């Protein structure tokens, strides 16, 4: 780099940082305008926050990135993960050719041969075993277009509901609870709540490491407003706990008791909002002792029964602060204080959560219980007040949930079990309604079990790594290699899933293709293709359409004379228009830094259900809140009485510790991208097992000692981390799941929430031994 160019770059760096900090510029912007790079916008792909990034390209390569100053989510800043965004494209072992398994080896083949083979295997499966045996394992990292094409491919092309995404592993409980509480998926508020509220309850969410930009917004609010309190309710002490005003530790699974305890105090002390409840809330109880889904073909359907407020308060008697203390370890006085904070009429209260509540064998219940507190206090759907479920993947909302890439779903919250919904989908897709099967087949975990049983014979995995990420993954890895199964994996890098594939298809990623992601605040963001993918890598969407052509339903994806991405989106948009799920015209996304839905009369609705902001609510009443999507419940939200029930596998004499899994700051999910960034790999080269210092002393384990973890599923050797970044509660250990050489999911249990079918990666019983 020439000195003058270097000074120029440094000046540009300083200018961007000053602008993002809101400080005066050093140079007039014009002086830095021509930097020789072509800049294009894109959302970051490392979490569900959806920060805007500008990508600087020269000679076909990304040379620079910057936080997008025009993006309302992050206003010019990216978290420290922003350093690695573009590097994930340039790992040395990018897949560049289709690879076919021959014995233990993979040999390169042409795209034509690969696509012919996929079509042939699908055709054979259809003939021998029927459409349900053809399955697609998708992703919350699929773009909106890809998810839409995959759903249409499966439901309207193959005629199979055997499609489910990895988002089942991270968001399904949030979806199930949004649906059974409000009749509409996704939060009512938006990220401005982080700037406008004053009391933040984090339920098992390590926002400082997993959603850094959102956490910064919350802490920036605290700097301006001394009233702000951040309360971290968790089972593990993290960087978030360190920065919170208060850390409240509870025992694993006891969030159910704690949330009910808070409601108990609110009801007992009559701190609830009587008028809000009367106008907007109906009460129900559901089935109890609902099981854990550990057995194959487990099936469960909940049934709600209306109850009175009196019955609800009787139910809450089991959750007095003293009883909650016994179950959760949270002192009774603290339970009371938390309840009063939630109910304080002078406080604007928000709750945030992600995997802690979602990856839970009672995930739907515990989501319901947090809504209960907001419904009791009427603190919902207002600026700075409300419950907000965060997402882990960049398009868990935009693709998996909104497009509905689940076995039971169709776009815009519709379901295959509803004949009217099927009819609407068939009309838009121009297929006979009989083509779309009325019965859901396999949710993600059951899909992998069905592969093992042989009920699924053809599986196509895109943009996901289930053979590392699924719970109890050892069983499924063996299943993939069984005779008579054909597994196709489309990915950018070799992974533990490509390893068990029969055919590997090289995929383009992020700005190597045009796409859209939808973040946690209902903001859909568009980007254009900015660089070419390496070698022969192709976008997943192209792969699907090419196979569709070979199977004779290519016409589903033909839009003569139109731009394909635009045409696909405009068709998809038809599902939501006029339903409260309205998306904007494609051109708007191309211009804007994302658009929040519903987009009505040329405007985004920032707080749904609130007549001040939402024209759909104004149709129902003049002023106040209307849960208008919950038509079956007379447009009221449902407050659910849900009890505490124990975890599927509780520590005992043989396996005396709780095992919880999750992420570390440096690595994204299964590490397939971030482990390719040398700086990140060096910083955190291997997964460690975190122990509480007192447990470590008892077991004679010191930092970096070798430790053997054993569950009923398997064993794993890891090094110990004691008193470092995260400190799990006494009697618990924590292991991140990014490390493909140390796969903790060989040990986890495939128990799930019977309502949402989301596995519990946070709780199973483990033995901990010091090695040598």
């Amino acid at each position, binding site marked *: *780099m020439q000195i003058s160019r*270097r000074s120029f*770059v*440094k000046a*540009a*760096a*300083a*200018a*961007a*940082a*000053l*602008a*993002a*900090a*809101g*400080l*005066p510029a*050093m140079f007039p912007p014009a002086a830095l305008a021509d930097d020789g*790079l072509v800049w294009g916008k894109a959302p970051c792909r490392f979490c569900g926050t959806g920060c805007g990034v500008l990508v*600087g390209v*020269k*000679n*076909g*390569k*990304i*040379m*620079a*990135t*910057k*936080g997008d100053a025009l993006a309302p989510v992050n206003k*010019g*800043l*990216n*978290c*420290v993960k*922003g*350093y690695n965004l*573009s*590097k994930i494209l*340039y790992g040395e072992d990018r897949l560049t050719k289709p690879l076919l398994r021959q014995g233990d080896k993979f040999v390169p083949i042409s795209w034509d041969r690969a696509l012919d083979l996929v079509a042939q295997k699908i055709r054979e499966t259809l003939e021998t075993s029927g459409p349900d045996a053809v399955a697609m394992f998708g992703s919350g990292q699929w773009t909106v277009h890809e998810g839409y094409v995959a759903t249409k491919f499966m439901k309207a092309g193959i005629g199979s509901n055997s499609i489910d995404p990895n988002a089942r592993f991270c968001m399904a409980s949030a979806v199930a609870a949004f649906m059974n509480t409000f009749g509409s998926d996704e939060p009512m508020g938006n990220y401005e709540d982080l700037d406008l509220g004053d009391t933040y309850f984090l339920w098992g969410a390590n926002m*400082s490491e997993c959603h*850094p*930009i959102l*956490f*910064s917004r919350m*802490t*920036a609010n605290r*700097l301006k407003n001394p009233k702000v309190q951040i309360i971290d309710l968790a089972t593990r002490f993290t960087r978030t706990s360190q*920065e919170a005003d208060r850390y409240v530790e509870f025992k694993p699974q006891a969030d159910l008791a704690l949330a009910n305890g808070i409601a108990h105090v609110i009801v007992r002390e009559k701190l609830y909002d009587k008028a809000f409840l009367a106008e907007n809330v109906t009460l129900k109880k559901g089935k109890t002792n609902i099981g854990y889904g550990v057995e194959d073909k487990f099936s469960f359907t909940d049934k709600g029964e209306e109850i009175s407020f009196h019955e609800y308060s009787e139910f809450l008697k089991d959750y007095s602060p003293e009883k909650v203390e016994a179950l959760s370890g949270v002192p009774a006085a603290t339970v009371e204080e938390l309840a009063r904070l939630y109910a304080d009429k002078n406080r604007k209260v928000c709750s945030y959560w992600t995997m802690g509540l979602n990856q839970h064998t009672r995930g739907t219940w515990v989501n319901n219980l947090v809504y209960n507190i907001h419904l009791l206090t009427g603190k919902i759907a207002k600026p700075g007040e409300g419950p907000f479920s965060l997402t882990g993947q960049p398009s868990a909302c935009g693709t998996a949930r909104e497009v509905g890439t689940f076995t039971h779903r169709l776009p815009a919250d519709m379901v295959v079990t509803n004949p009217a919904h099927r009819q609407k989908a068939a009309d838009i897709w121009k297929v006979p309604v009989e083509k779309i099967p009325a019965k859901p087949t396999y949710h993600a975990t059951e899909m992998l079990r069905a592969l093992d049983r042989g009920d699924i014979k053809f599986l196509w995995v895109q943009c996901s790594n289930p053979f590392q990420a699924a719970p109890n993954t050892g069983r499924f890895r063996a299943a993939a290699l069984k005779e008579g199964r054909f597994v196709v994996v489309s990915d950018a890098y070799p992974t533990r899933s490509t390893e068990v594939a029969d055919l590997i298809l090289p995929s383009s990623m992020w700005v190597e293709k045009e796409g859209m992601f939808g973040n946690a605040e209902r903001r859909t963001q568009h980007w254009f293709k900015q660089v070419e993918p390496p070698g022969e890598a192709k976008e997943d969407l192209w792969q699907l359409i090419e196979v569709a052509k070979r199977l004779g339903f290519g016409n589903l994806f033909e839009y003569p004379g139109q731009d394909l991405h635009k045409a696909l989106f405009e068709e998809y948009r038809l599902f939501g228009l006029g339903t409260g799920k309205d998306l904007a015209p494609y051109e708007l996304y191309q211009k804007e830094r994302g658009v929040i839905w519903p987009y009505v009369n040329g405007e985004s609705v920032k707080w749904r259900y609130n007549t001040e902001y939402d024209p759909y609510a104004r149709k129902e009443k003049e002023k106040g809140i209307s849960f208008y999507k919950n038509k079956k419940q007379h447009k009221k939200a449902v407050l659910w009485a849900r009890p505490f029930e124990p975890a599927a596998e509780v520590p005992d004499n043989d396996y005396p510790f709780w095992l919880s899994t999750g992420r570390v700051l440096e690595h994204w999910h299964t590490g397939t991208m971030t482990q390719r*960034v*040398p*700086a*990140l790999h*060096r*910083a955190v080269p291997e997964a460690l097992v975190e122990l509480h210092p007192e447990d470590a002393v008892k077991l004679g384990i010191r930092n970096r000692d070798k430790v053997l973890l054993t569950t009923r599923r398997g064993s794993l050797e890891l090094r110990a981390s004691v008193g470092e970044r995260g400190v799990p509660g006494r009697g618990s250990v924590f292991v991140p799941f990014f490390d493909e050489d140390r796969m903790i999911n060989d040990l986890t249990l495939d128990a799930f929430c019977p309502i949402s079918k989301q596995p519990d990666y946070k709780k199973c019983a483990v033995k901990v031994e010091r090695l040598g």
Partner: protein
Amino acid sequence: MPVSGIVVRVQQSRQQQVKQLMEVMEGVELHPACTEELLVATLESTDYRQEHELTDRIQALEGVFSLSVAYHNFEDMVDA
């Protein structure tokens, strides 16, 4: 040699101390403009490894809440 522009959010009471510690770090150029809770700096490193070590060291300083990246240029690290 990667160059970046960063914003560091600090605890007000430790702003001075963080500034002093950052000023002596090689490769860090603190910008004179700042607020009580925000510091702005440019980082220059010889390679990604050094850059990562630098951001790690800054984040580990007592009183630092977060480090955010506004700009990152690595044009001479890319073989175009």
